């Protein structure tokens, strides 16, 4: 095999065993991150063919818009005994900084993945470690809970929030208020979920809002609508409303007029990096 090296039979048995670094074989970290100010540290030990153990420590600064970043980490020949990844700067929560550590052939240009050593969410509070940690997918387990204030629309304009690229949201709740102007028509606000074009889910409050009122609307997994109570209306939503990047959470208000005014929506979402 071109470029292959025969590991000497006398080499001590390695703890990690499976990952052998030959000539032009390196490690590569790949990250998809949403949190600000994150620096990742990749550290570990390699046992060389001479039997000695060599530590390695690298840092990687990922992008903050969930787009992919990657960095090849040059290595010598030997066995990967152990490796770990953690956030040495910043405080990414589970669901915000997904990383993968691979064995790759090459350093620049065409780089080929040979095997995956670590895969999961990097945090400052816990460490991804090899050996011992399973490779996990980005949408496994719980994500990060985020309270997000959306855009305050101009008068006569509906609420519309778009799930960011490379994010997956589970909508837990949404709250907003509508103030109607003096036009004597009944408004019926409908919470509408679409994939960016096609409507997937919609529910109205069941009670029409008349002129010159301010009513609060709350969406959550209530299971049923209720009659208006002190101007609070309910939008029951599915308990597991999973939304991919580009999906929209918006209102469609029947008979909305130019003087009607929605507040900013306040959303509670559980967020992951998209798989």
């Amino acid at each position, binding site marked *: 095999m071109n470029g292959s090296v025969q590991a000497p039979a006398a080499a001590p048995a390695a703890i990690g065993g499976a990952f052998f670094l030959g000539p032009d074989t390196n490690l590569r970290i790949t990250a998809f991150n949403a*949190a600000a100010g994150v620096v990742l540290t990749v550290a570990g030990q390699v046992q060389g063919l001479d039997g000695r153990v060599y530590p390695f420590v690298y840092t990687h600064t990922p992008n903050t818009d969930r787009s992919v970043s990657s960095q090849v980490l040059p290595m010598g020949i030997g066995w990967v005994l152990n490796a770990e990844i953690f956030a040495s700067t910043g405080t990414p929560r589970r669901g915000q900084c997904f990383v993968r550590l691979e064995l790759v052939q090459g350093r620049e240009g065409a780089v080929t993945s040979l095997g995956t050593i670590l895969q999961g969410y990097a945090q400052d509070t816990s460490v991804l470690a090899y050996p011992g940690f399973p490779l996990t997918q980005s949408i496994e387990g719980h994500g990060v809970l985020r*309270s997000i*204030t959306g855009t305050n629309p101009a008068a006569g304009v509906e609420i519309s929030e778009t799930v960011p690229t490379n994010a997956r949201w589970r909508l837990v709740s949404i709250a907003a208020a509508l103030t109607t102007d003096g036009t004597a028509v009944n408004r019926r606000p409908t919470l509408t979920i679409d994939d960016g074009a096609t409507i997937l889910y919609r529910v109205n409050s069941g009670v029409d809002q008349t002129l010159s009122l301010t009513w609060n609307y709350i969406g959550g997994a209530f299971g049923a609508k209720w009659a208006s109570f002190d101007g609070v209306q309910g939008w029951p939503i599915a308990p597991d409303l999973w939304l991919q990047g580009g999906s929209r959470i918006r209102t469609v208000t029947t008979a909305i007029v130019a003087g009607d005014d929605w507040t900013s929506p306040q959303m509670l979402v559980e967020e992951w990096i998209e798989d």
Partner: protein
Amino acid sequence: MRVQCNTCKGEYDTVTTDGLAYYHVCPPVSAVRATRADGTRAIVAIDKLEPTDTIRVQRAGKPVDTTIADLQPEDTRLDELSVDRPQARDERPYRVDEKTIGMISTGKGITRVETPTDAPADAVIL
């Protein structure tokens, strides 16, 4: 930083309270199919409707054509639409090349909004 979108006039903070970037995307335009006073049919944004425009509503369970001026409180507008907003701003990141990330559409841009300053240091909370 608080800004106003010059396209849709919505206001938002560019960074959310948890420190992550907020990506504004303009909402669609709420519109309705209408017949203008001169008889032409058009899709008209709700803020552009004239009292003389005729639209179709559901009144007492039946579809009825009525002018905006003659709308009754119980009327439910039919033929309502959400249409793409012209020059919509879409701040979601878009990879221009290996090292450059832009946004999908800048629209008409943004304007910084002055926010009220905090209470002066000698303010007394009662």
